[in-house]
C-alpha cells in the first residue's frame, strides 16, 4: 500500500514536470537565404517569413509548416527528423547545426537560416553533402580492407574485446552531416583538405583489427598538408560536431602517429598494400 502511494506521488511529480508551461507564443521572424541555381533569373537574397511559434517547435516543424502554408518552392533536406541521419545540417544564426533537433525556444525572435558553406548548393538550404562525402570515402578508402573477401559464414565469428568494439562504435557514430567541414577554417583556404570527418574515419579504421592497413598505408592518405598536417588546430569541427565526437583528440592523435610514421618509417609498407592517394576533384 505504502509503495502504491509512493508510486502515485511519483506519478504526480512526473505530471507536474511534464506539464508544458503556458506562455504567449512569439511571432518568429525567419530570414532564409534563397537561391535557385537552376533558375537564371534567381539571385541570392534573404527572404523573411513570419511564423507563429508553437510548443516544442523544431526547425523541422517550422520549415515544413512554412512550405505547406506559405512558400511551396522552399528547398531544404530532412530525412530522419531525429538527429541521427545528418541530412539537415545548416547555418542557424551563422552556426552549423542539425536543424531537426534545433528547438525554436532556444533561438531569438528573429534568426537567419543559410545553407551549409563548403558544399555544392542545390537550392536554398539544400546542399550536396552526399556527393562530397562519397568523394571523401573514395579518397581515403573508408572501408575495412579485408585479407580475404570470402568469409566463412557458417563459422563462429572472430572474438573481439568488448571495450574495443565500443571504442570503434564511438568513432563510428559520425553521421557525415558536414558540420565539421563547414566550420573548418582550413578548408576555406585549402579546398582539398580532407576534413575532420576523414581523419576521424581513419582513426576508426586504425583501431579496427579487421582493417588490414597499417600506419604506412594511412600515412599515404593523411600524411600531407591536405591531410592531417594541414590542420591548424582551430578545432571548430570539435565545437560544432552534433554527435560530440572527440575530434580534437583524434586529430591530435593521428597527427602524432603520422608524424612518427613520417619520421621513423615504422611498419614497413612492404607487408601490406600501399593505398594510392586519389586527389579530390576540385570544381
Amino acid at each position, binding site marked *: 500500500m505504502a509503495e502504491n502511494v509512493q508510486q502515485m506521488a511519483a506519478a504526480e511529480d512526473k505530471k507536474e514536470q511534464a506539464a508544458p508551461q503556458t506562455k504567449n507564443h512569439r511571432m518568429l521572424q525567419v530570414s532564409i537565404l534563397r537561391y535557385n541555381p537552376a533558375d537564371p533569373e534567381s539571385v541570392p537574397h534573404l527572404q523573411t517569413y513570419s511564423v507563429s511559434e508553437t510548443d516544442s517547435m523544431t526547425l523541422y516543424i517550422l520549415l515544413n509548416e512554412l512550405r505547406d502554408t506559405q512558400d511551396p518552392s522552399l528547398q531544404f533536406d530532412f530525412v530522419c527528423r531525429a538527429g541521427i541521419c545528418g541530412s539537415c545540417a545548416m547555418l542557424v544564426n551563422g552556426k552549423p547545426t542539425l536543424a531537426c533537433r534545433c528547438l525554436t525556444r532556444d533561438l531569438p525572435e528573429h534568426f537567419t537560416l543559410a545553407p551549409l558553406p563548403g558544399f555544392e548548393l542545390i537550392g536554398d538550404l539544400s546542399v550536396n553533402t552526399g556527393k562530397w562525402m*562519397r568523394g571523401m570515402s573514395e579518397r581515403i578508402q573508408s*572501408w575495412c580492407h579485408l585479407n580475404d573477401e570470402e568469409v566463412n559464414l557458417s563459422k563462429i565469428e572472430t572474438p573481439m574485446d568488448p571495450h574495443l568494439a565500443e571504442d570503434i562504435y564511438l568513432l563510428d557514430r559520425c553521421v557525415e552531416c558536414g558540420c565539421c567541414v563547414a566550420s573548418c577554417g582550413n578548408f576555406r583556404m585549402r579546398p582539398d583538405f580532407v576534413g575532420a570527418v576523414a581523419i576521424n574515419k581513419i582513426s576508426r579504421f586504425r583501431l579496427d583489427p579487421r582493417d588490414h592497413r597499417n600506419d604506412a598505408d594511412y600515412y599515404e592518405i593523411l600524411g600531407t598538408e591536405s591531410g592531417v598536417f594541414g590542420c591548424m588546430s582551430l578545432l571548430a569541427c570539435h565545437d560544432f560536431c552534433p554527435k560530440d565526437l572527440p575530434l580534437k583528440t583524434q586529430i591530435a592523435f593521428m597527427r602524432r602517429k603520422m608524424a612518427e610514421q613520417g619520421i621513423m618509417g615504422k611498419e614497413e609498407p612492404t607487408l601490406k598494400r600501399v593505398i594510392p592517394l586519389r586527389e579530390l576533384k576540385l570544381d
Partner: protein
Amino acid sequence: MKVIYTDVLVIGAGLAGLRMAVGAKRRGHDSIILSLVPPKRSHSKAAQGGMQASLANVIKGVGDNEDVHFGDTVRGSDWGADQEVVRMFVNTAPKAVRELAAWGVPWSRITPGDRQVIINGEKVTITERKEAAGLIGQRDFGGTKKWRTCFVSDGTGHAMLNAVSDRVIAYGIPVHERVEAIALIHDGSRCYGAVVRDLITGELIGYVARATAIATGGAGKLFRVSTNAQICEGTGHAIALETGVAMCGNLEAVQFHPTGIFPAGILVTEGCRGDGGLLRDVDGHRFMPDVEPEKKELASRDVVSRRMEERIAQGKGVKSRFGEHLWLDITLLGENHIKHNLREVYEICHYFLGIDPTKDWIPVRPAQHYTMGGVRTKPTGESETLKGLFAAGEAACWDMHGFNRLGGNSVAETVVAGMIIGECIADFCDKPENAIDIPTRVVYDFIKREQSKLDAFAKNSGTENMAEIRTRMQEIMTTKVGIFRNGDMLSQAVEELEDLYKKSFNVAVKNQPGANPELVYAYRTQKMLRVALGMALGASLRTESRGAHFRIDYPVRNDAEWCKRTLSTWKNENDTLPTITYQDLDISKMELPPGWRGYGAKNYIDNPETPIRQKQVDEIRAKMEAEGADRFAIQNALMPYLQLLPEDLRGKNERIDEPLS
C-alpha cells in the same frame, strides 16, 4: 532523352538495396543504385535496438537456434507469414550478422563473468560463459523466447548502414543520389527498368536494366503519427501498383510501435523494454503484467500497442496539451547502462523532450512504425506476376512478417533478403533466356508519358491544395485505419480517400526550373493516396483480426475464412480504387500449423485443415524423434526449404553448443 543501361537497377539505397547490389556486383553484374538521399541517410539508419539472429552466445540465449527463431517469427506474424521464407530467413540471419562482423560492424561483445541485468522489474545477476568471451552479445526483445537480438549500443542500423554502404564504395558500385524512380518500364509481363526523375535538375531519365529491384522501404508518411523518416512515403509500393501487373501483398498489415515519444512520434527502441524498461500509466502503475501475464512488456508489438491504447481508453492515460500518453520508465536500468547501451535514447530525450531518462519517465504512445505489406514476391524475391521485377526489405511482401513483425526482424530482413535476393538476381541475370530486347522508342514513350503527367500539374487550373489533401489523408489513416479499426470507420476512410484521390487531379503546381519541391510534393502525394487506398480497402474487406490488423467488429482471428494473403494492384490508369484479389495460404504444407501465439487473445476460429495438419506434424515428429533423427532431418521432413536458398547460404550455423562436425 537520356537513357542509361545497366545489368541491375536497384531502387533504394537502404540496407536491402545496398546489399543486393553488392551480391549482384560480386557475381559480375553491373549495378546502379538509385537513391532519394545519400545512402547513409536512408531509414535503415533508424533501426536502433538490434537485429535478430540465433547465435545463442549469451547465457540467456542458450538453446536458441533456427527452430526457435522460426517459431517466434511465425507466431509473431499471427500465421500470416510464408513459412518457407521464414525458414530461409532464420537460417541466413546468423550468416548475415557474421558477414557484417567481418565487414567491420562493431557489434556489442560479451564480457565473461557476472553482470547485473533487469528482468521483469527485478535486478538479477547472470553469468556469461568463458567460451562466449568477445563473441557477439544478444539482448531481449518482444515476442521472443530467447535473448536473440544482436546490437551495436542502440545505433545498430547506423553501424550496419555504415559498413554496407562502405562495401558498396569498396566495390565501386555507383549510387545515383537525389533521383527518384517515378514509374516502372514494362510491357505487361516483363519489367525493363524505370523512368527516373533527377531531384536536382528536374530532368527525366530512362534506366534500362535486365533486373530491376525495389528496395524503397516503408510507407509511414501516409500516417500523421509515425516513427518513419520523411522519405518513407511508399512510392516504391506505388510504382509497382501502378503497373497493373505487379501486386502488393497485405497492404492492410501496418505495425504500430508501442514507444514513439509523445507527441513527436520519434522512436525509442524496443531495447528499452528488452533491457528491462517498464510501461506505467497515469498512476505510475505498471499495467502490462495485469493484461499480459505471459510476456508483460515484451509481448509482440501489436499486442502491447493495443494494451496501451486500451489503458488510455480506460481513463488511465496521462493528459497533456497534445492529448494523452503513457510513461516508459527506464530509470531502473541505471545511468551507466543508459549512457552506454541506450545512448541514442538518451540523446533523443535530451534534445526533443528536454528530459533526462536516467531520472525521468519518458512520455510515449504507439505510433505507426512498419509496413508489413509490400511488393509481393516469390521466395527468390521476384514478382509473381511481372518478370524481371524484384523487391526486398520493407518494400517487399516476401512475406516473413505476415500480419505482425517482431522487433529486430526488420533490420535482419534487410540484410538477409539482400544476401539471398542479390544472389537470385545474379542467377536471373546469368541465364541467357532473361536477356532483354527493348526498342529505345518504348523507353522514350514511357518517359514522355511520365513527363506529360508532370506537365499536367503545371497546366492545371484546379483549386485544390495538395498540402491540405496530404494532411487530410494522414489524419484519416491515423484515426480510421489505425490500431483499432471497424467496418464503418474503414468504409468512411475508403470513401474519403477516394475523394481526395480524385481531388489530387485538380491541383495546380507552379512550373519552376530545377528541383521544384512543390511538384515533388504533388506527384508523391498522388502516389501515396494509391497506397493508402490499398491499405484502407484491404482493411475494410478483411473481416477478422490478425496480428496488427485489429477489427473491433471482428475481434477474432478467423483461419476458416481468412488464412489468405490480400493482393492489390491498380488495373487501369483511370481507376480510383485498387483491384483486390486473394491468395490462399496452404495449411497442409505448414511446418507450424495455426494455434495460440503464447500471448494476446486466446480465441480464434480454426480452419478444418488445421487439426489434420497438426496431427500429421505431431506424428512425423514423434516417429522421427523415436528413431533418433536430429532436428534438421525432422524439419526437412516437415517442410523442405533448403532448395530455395542459394547454395552458398545452405550451410548450418555453428554455435558454442552446436559445433560444426
